[in-house]
Structure formats: C-alpha cells, structure tokens
C-alpha cells in the first residue's frame, strides 16, 4: 500500500542479521482549507518535457483506458489507445507509425502484457519504443519479469498524474 519493501538479511545460520524497511512517500502540497479556483487547474508538472510524445496505450478496460488516456493528454502526449495486444502490435507494425512509448496493461485477456512486450522486442531492431507496464500488482516477481523481458518501467494502478509523470521522466 505504501509501495515499500521490507527485507531481512540473514547470516549463515539463518538468524536475522539486519532488517531494512523502505517506504516511498509522496510529498504533497498542503493547503489549509479548501481552495476555490475557476476553470481548469494549473498542471503540477510542466508539459514541455512530454509535449508531442507519441504514446500507444493498450488496456482492455474501457474505463481505465479512458482515464489513462486523458491523463497522458493532460501531460501533453499524443495518445493512441487500443484495447488489445493484437491491436497494439498492428499499430506498431504499421510503417508510418513511430511511437516513443508503449504503455501496456499487464493483465489483458487473450494476450497479456508480457506476451505483447516479448513480441514488440522481436518486431523491429531500429526504433525501439520504451515499454512501460501498467499493473495493479506490487509483487516482486512481476517487476523482475518485466525487467527480464525488456520493460523499462512499471506504473501501479490506479494511475495518478504524478506517478505517470515521474515514471515517464525516469525512463526517458
């Protein structure tokens, strides 16, 4: 829940030698009370870094896809949203398309994100888009598997604007 990690290193006899706890905190602006503002809120991140960034988003869930797409557009990205691994691969294979980022939901039916990522890596040797996985899972083996396949980043669902911006910034 706090996106943290805890591990114990043991000595040869199996006794705990030291314990490490890592917690990830998000610093938030604090406001004394509710603030009125008209119209749209000013973006907390500058869009310039992501402006025009071509992203393809693959998520089979309509609601999540709608929200994530809007989130990316808010950050200044050009988003193509598809609802399956197949559509994603088709879009990537089309010669005239050149996406810089592929955002993959790991848990799609038919073809999951891992499978899609593997096939993307086999598609073309030049023009390698960066792949970022979307998952509700926080399990370590998921992260490990991502790294093994060549997925550059992972974002936990439900997606937050700040989380997306941070991870994009990190992989670019």
């Amino acid at each position, binding site marked *: 829940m706090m996106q943290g990690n805890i591990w114990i290193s043991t000595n040869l006899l199996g006794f705990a030698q030291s314990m490490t706890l890592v917690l990830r905190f998000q610093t938030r602006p604090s406001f004394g009370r509710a603030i009125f503002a008209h*119209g749209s809120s000013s973006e907390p991140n500058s869009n310039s870094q992501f402006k025009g960034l071509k992203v393809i988003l693959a998520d089979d869930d309509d609601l999540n896809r709608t929200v994530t797409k809007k989130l990316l557009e808010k950050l200044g990205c050009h988003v193509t949203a598809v609802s399956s691994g197949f559509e994603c691969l088709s879009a990537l294979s089309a010669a005239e398309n050149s996406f810089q980022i592929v955002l993959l939901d790991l848990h799609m039916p038919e073809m999951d994100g891992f499978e899609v990522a593997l096939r993307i890596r086999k598609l073309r040797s030049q023009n390698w888009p960066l792949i970022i996985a979307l998952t509700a899972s926080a399990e370590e083996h998921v992260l490990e598997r991502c790294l093994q396949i060549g997925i550059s980043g992972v974002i936990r*669902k439900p997606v937050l604007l700040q989380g997306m911006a941070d991870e994009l910034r990190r992989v670019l």
Partner: protein
Amino acid sequence: MEVGQMQRRLIEYTKSLFMEGILDDQFLQLQQLQDESNPDFVVEVVSLFFQDAEKLLNDITRALDQQSVDFPKVDAHVHQLKGSSASVGAQRVKNGCIAFRNFCEEQNVDGSLRCLQQIKQEYYHVKNKLEALFRLEQQIVAAGGSVPMMELSF
C-alpha cells in the same frame, strides 16, 4: 439560493464524502483531469463506472446463483469491479471487492453472498451521492456560476 451559497454547499458536500470514506483521492484526480477541452470528463467516466458496475454486479449475482459456483469466474468479475471502482475513487466499493476476493479464494459461497450484498449497498450509496453531487454542479452552472475545484489536505 445564490451562486456563492451553492458553491459552498457543493464544497461541504464533497468534503463530507471524503470524510466518510465514500470517495478517495482518485476522485480528485479525475476532477483534475477535467478541463475546457473535456468539460464533462468526470461525469462521463463516472457514467462508465455505473454501467460497468451494474453489469458486473449482475454477472456476479448470476454466477453465485449457480448450482456449482465458478469461483475463478466470480473472482475475475470482482477483480474488474475492484479496478474500475479504484479508478473513480469509490473507496468503499473497492474495499468491499478486496474482501470479496478472499471469500472467492476460500470458495466460500455464504461469505461471498454476504459480501456481494455489502458491495451492492455501497455501490448504490456512492451512486446516489455522486448523482446528487452532479446535480449540485448543474445547478451552479445553470445559475451562471462555475464549479469550484478542490484541493484537500489529508
């Protein structure tokens, strides 16, 4: 009622939903994504959620009604409901789904039925609240005012 009053009422109402744990930060996130190019974004997404949720709740009800319950299938539906409720910030529905999945794992029919009842209640509760919230917003806009955006500190 004049616009300022209505705006204050909206703020108080929204605040209460957060205080009661009916909505969480994810809902604020949705509001922040709304802008001039997409002025009805929140209503659209929430409507999608209502459609999704009602279909899933029906599917789950039917699945639990079978002679031999297909728990993996029920679990898949609950997982989906958990995802969409989390995306709109319907915290209590989301939490209900988390509990439900434990019963699925145990293949516990009674527990599942009870949980389903609970989730349905929470769902209709949040639906009513959100519809009231949107009505308040509409009233403000109809009176020529603009809908206040909120930042809350917790």
